[in-house]
């Protein structure tokens, strides 16, 4: 059996090195908190028996088991530093052999936690741009070995880097201001950021801290009582008449709307005050913020795609926003790099151009989706609605109103699908991919074809029947999915993009400057 396990793994003929055995101890100690529950369970289970000696035995057994498990992991883990790649083989039963080519290693990080530091060990992480973030970790090796590995990777990459610098694009050296927003622009943006979030926040606070309040916040009767104490009576409200009630409702709405706009403006000023995007030798540099000033640099070559967004109202005044898609996360709320929150199209294309992304040539080359795609989606809604109607006819006394309501739902869905179809455009030119979608949040995604990571043609059962397909592009940090294409179109686009992609290697597009 042992032979069967070890047999195939050595096919590569490379033994590789084991991790440092003392790492076992560190892993064991740092894993102790996880053992708390098993230990408690063991103690609890042993407590009932008459023999008090059982408790330490159980504890020892749990600890020994954990140590044994970690020893097995250690035993089955090997890494090998090869000529072209670093290989890691691991797994007790499920064996995984991972190969990381030197060209793909973006960063080697060496980490020393306190315990490891005492023992002169360190953890080495090889970071690649892999989408799932789970690359390769050697925990633990001696610090010397860690430094040796890092030096090795750097020297292997150095040759590559030299080649890339020659073919890199030239970025101007002086910091040129690409885009800035004055107070007026920030104010306009604030108006578009209408938000009633303040009520949610207040409500949340009230719920969280209601034990601090001297009364029950959610007691409606108390509020009514409070109002009555200050002279307002239900009869008085009833007594003000129709006009009075209307004025009250109107007042309530106006204050709500005012609060909504005020929140939007204040929040926007806090975040966007003094917005300035400049182009430096390192890439885009963005400074903004009223109290907490942020200063974020984004290398231009890291930009994987651009997203131009607008809404039905702001579009009338010509306002759009521009974001860059990359593997980095911009802030907590925003995963894409905000390059311009509120800009005219002219300003915006100028920024995009600096990132190597060109404006589409009008509507030319953009295609509408096959209507059938939306019709199928709508048709899928019909059976459940019909069943609901049938149920109403059979079981309800008054079925007319609910049935009208259900038909109305179908009508609304049809309208939404129609709007979606009308706005939807896809297309490509010699360099870029385009995708426009959404009638409320109108988004145009532009991606250079050479930055595409993978392509997938997908067909569901119904789509397959009608020869429709969707084409999903893997973009680092974002998604781009074309839907409602005839299968042949999808295949043609894929072939065209494949031709562009095959010429350029990943490390060349993402490291060159």
């Amino acid at each position, binding site marked *: 059996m042992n032979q069967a396990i070890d047999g195939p793994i050595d096919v590569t003929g490379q033994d590789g090195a084991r991790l440092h055995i003392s790492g076992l101890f560190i892993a064991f100690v740092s894993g102790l908190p996880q053992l708390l529950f098993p230990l408690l369970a063991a103690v609890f289970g042993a407590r009932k028996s008459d023999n008090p000696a059982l408790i330490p035995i159980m504890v020892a057994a749990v600890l020994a088991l954990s140590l044994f498990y970690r020893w097995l992991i250690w035993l089955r883990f090997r890494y090998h530093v090869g000529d072209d790649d670093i290989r890691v083989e691991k797994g007790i039963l499920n064996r995984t052999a991972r*190969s990381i080519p030197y060209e793909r290693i973006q960063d080697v990080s060496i980490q020393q936690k306190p315990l490891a530091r005492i023992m002169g060990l360190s953890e080495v992480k090889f970071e690649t741009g*892999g989408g799932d973030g789970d690359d390769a970790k050697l925990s633990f090796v001696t610090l010397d070995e860690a430094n040796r590995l890092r030096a090795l990777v750097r020297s292997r990459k150095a040759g*590559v880097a030299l080649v890339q610098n020659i073919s890199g694009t030239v970025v101007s050296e002086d910091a040129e201001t690409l885009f800035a927003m004055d107070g007026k622009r920030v104010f306009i943006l604030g108006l578009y950021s209408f938000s009633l979030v303040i009520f949610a926040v207040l409500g949340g606070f009230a719920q969280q801290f209601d034990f601090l309040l001297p009364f029950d916040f959610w007691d409606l009767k108390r509020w009514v009582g409070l109002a009555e104490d200050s002279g307002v009576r239900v009869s008085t409200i009833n007594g003000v008449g129709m006009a009075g009630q209307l004025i009250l409702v109107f007042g309530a709405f106006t204050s709500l709307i005012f609060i909504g706009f005020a929140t939007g403006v204040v929040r926007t000023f806090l975040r966007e005050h003094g917005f300035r995007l400049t182009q430096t030798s390192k890439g885009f540099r963005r400074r903004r913020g009223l109290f907490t000033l942020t200063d974020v640099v984004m290398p231009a070559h890291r930009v994987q795609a651009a997203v131009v967004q607008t809404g039905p109202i702001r579009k009338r005044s010509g306002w759009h926003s521009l974001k860059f898609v990359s593997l980095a996360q911009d802030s907590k709320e925003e995963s894409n790099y905000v390059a311009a929150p509120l800009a005219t199209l002219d300003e915006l294309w100028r920024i995009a151009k600096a990132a190597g992304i060109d404006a589409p040539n009008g509507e030319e080359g953009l295609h509408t989706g096959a209507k059938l795609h939306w019709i199928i989606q709508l048709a899928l809604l019909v059976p459940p609605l019909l069943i609901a109607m049938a149920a109403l006819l059979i079981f309800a006394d008054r079925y007319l109103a609910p049935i009208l309501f259900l038909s109305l739902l179908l009508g609304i869905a049809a309208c939404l699908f129609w709007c979606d179809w009308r706005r939807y455009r896809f297309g490509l030119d010699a360099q870029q991919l385009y995708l426009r979608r959404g009638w409320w949040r109108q988004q145009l995604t532009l991606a250079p074809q050479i930055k595409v990571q993978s*392509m*997938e043609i997908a067909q569901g059962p119904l789509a*397959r029947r009608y020869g429709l397909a969707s084409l999903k592009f893997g973009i680092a940090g974002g998604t781009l999915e074309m839907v409602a294409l005839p299968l042949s179109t999808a295949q043609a686009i894929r072939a065209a993009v494949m031709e562009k*992609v095959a010429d350029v290697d990943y490390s060349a597009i993402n490291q060159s400057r």
Partner: protein
Amino acid sequence: MTDDAPPELTPLDPAFITTSRIATALGLLPFVIGAGVLETAKLLPPGTFLVPMLLVYAFVAFTVPARKYRHWGYDMGTGRLRVVRGYMFYRDTFVPFGRIQHIDVDQGPIDRRYGLATLTVHTAGNHNSTVALPGLAYADALAMREAMRAAIRQETL
């Protein structure tokens, strides 16, 4: 049915049917045991739980893997790996060698018994960041890994 797979695709190793059957059979065993337990409780006439369960079990564990096998296929083209899978939900994926971040070759206990392996390539894209190709002969998987690695190396230099 077999004609559905485009002719240029390489099928998986036939042993994939067996390993897939074993894996599904083991994975669904708890349900059969559960049905057996319900049966012994004698809530309903004998066989109400066990018979349909066994039929479904036989179908899912025996017939489905063979169908699944027929709809898998791959192609190592010049410069890209193509993985095709699924009939109802058809997926046809291209991964250019130039975009591969790293490559895994996995072997589970059942795979090892039959000399199979799963090849997984990782890309930087959010969508399809991992593309897995199961049911390859272990030696083939290793050879494919070497070929892709060589391609990456060549393109960079």
